């Protein structure tokens, strides 16, 4: 019989706790929004922040509470996420332009040199503080891999001294574009087929001295483009992706071969 008392006491304490929790849930409980939960299920959960909200949960909350009614903000989720959200909210899904990041620099070890021997902490941010980094071209990718560290999908590798982004792994969140101290990683629509792999705004001769792959602003691409999509702006060829059809004429005529043609989706570009 003696063993019964502790058992009963324990059960009684547990029962009191259970009743307390049940009552608390009944009277104080905040009903969770079913809509929010189902929207959250449509999102990929990468928490990358590309939508402009603080992670997937925050975007789901904003959609459910009516703070925003745009279901197409999730770039990694793409059309599937947008359609799912749109069907839950009962609105029309806009077409999501999936994006992919690319590094606008072709200054590999063999085409550009180093100004000095950098012995500090191996990060682009630190290196950039000392005379704009150790590369001869002050616009070039420094290759210490700050972008590699922040990439949630491990899509970036440093090859030959510059960063390369694997377009098959890239989800277009744009964290690397904000991390790069040089600002040379750009987001472009993943249907793009032509990119300018240079960011040098220096004059042609100056660029040429620093890097044999650099854009010398000769303007040949501008003249060759049948769609008026490429222009030399501030000594650098710049593509307007709303006009570019990816014909690749500019890539053919470029004397320094800093315009590249390829297919981002298949990853044939690199």
């Amino acid at each position, binding site marked *: 019989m003696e063993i019964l*008392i*502790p058992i009963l*006491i*324990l059960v009684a*304490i*547990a029962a009191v*706790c*259970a009743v*307390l*929790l049940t009552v*608390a*849930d009944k009277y*104080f*409980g*905040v009903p969770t929004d079913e809509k929010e939960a189902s929207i959250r299920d449509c999102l990929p959960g990468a928490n990358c922040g590309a939508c402009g909200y603080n992670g997937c949960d925050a975007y789901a909350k904003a959609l459910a509470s009516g703070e925003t009614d745009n279901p197409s903000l999730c770039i990694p989720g793409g059309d599937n996420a947008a359609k799912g959200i749109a069907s839950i909210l009962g609105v029309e899904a806009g077409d999501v332009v999936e994006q992919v990041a690319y590094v606008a620099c072709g200054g590999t070890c063999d085409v550009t040199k180093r100004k000095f021997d950098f012995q500090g*902490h*191996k990060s682009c941010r630190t290196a950039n503080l000392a005379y704009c980094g150790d590369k001869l071209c002050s616009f070039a990718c420094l290759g210490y891999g700050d972008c590699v560290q922040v990439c949630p999908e491990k899509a970036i590798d440093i090859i030959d001294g510059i960063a390369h982004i694997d377009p098959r792994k890239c989800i277009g969140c744009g964290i690397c574009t904000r991390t790069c101290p040089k600002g040379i990683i750009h987001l472009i629509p993943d249907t793009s087929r032509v990119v300018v792999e240079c960011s040098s705004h220096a004059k042609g001769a100056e660029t040429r001295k620093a890097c044999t792959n650099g854009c010398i602003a000769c303007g040949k691409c501008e003249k060759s483009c049948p769609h008026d999509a490429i222009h030399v702006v501030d000594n650098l060829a710049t593509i307007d992706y709303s006009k570019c059809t990816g014909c690749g004429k500019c890539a053919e005529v470029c004397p320094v071969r800093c315009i590249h043609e390829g297919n981002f989706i298949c990853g044939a570009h690199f």
Partner: protein
Amino acid sequence: MPEVIRNLILILMAGVLVNNYVLQQFLGICPFLGVSKKVNQAVGMGIAVTFVMLCATAATYPIHTYVLVPLKLEYLQTIVFILVIAALVQFVEIVLKKFIPALHASLGVYLPLITTNCAVLGVAINNITDGYNFIESMISSLGVGLGFLLAMVLFAGVRGRIENCPAPKCFRGVPITLVAASIVALAFFGFAGVVENLLAV
């Protein structure tokens, strides 16, 4: 200074510095290593633990004194305390979500994480083993909680420095973190003689 207040201050300081639960008694190491990567997270966790420790002591002390002791069931202490603390944390979470959503959002995932934290259970049991009365128990819990907060914040700072150091490859990650934790713990040994003489007349 009246003897009572002096005694309370001693208990508080002992909890913060001398008997620091993380660095001297090695309780609650999991959140100490897990949530100390950033200072603001460490502060959030520390405040949540302090809060839960106070609630847990306020709930477990009366249960022990008025239920377990009269029935001579002190040996059920551990299991009853775990039960009560787990239920209490859930209760607090529900109430906070309803009435102070801002606090609930800032404590976030930390509240449910602490449900079965051994530092919380440890402080509830140690208060009783040390023979404190209710007021002393509450002060002791506050001290231990603040000590936890202090250890978390200090260690978050230390970790920030470690991130920027080129540690040998085999030491990177958990090993170097544990080495750093032991050095911080060694530093806290220096407080061993402080409290007795802190209020010496």
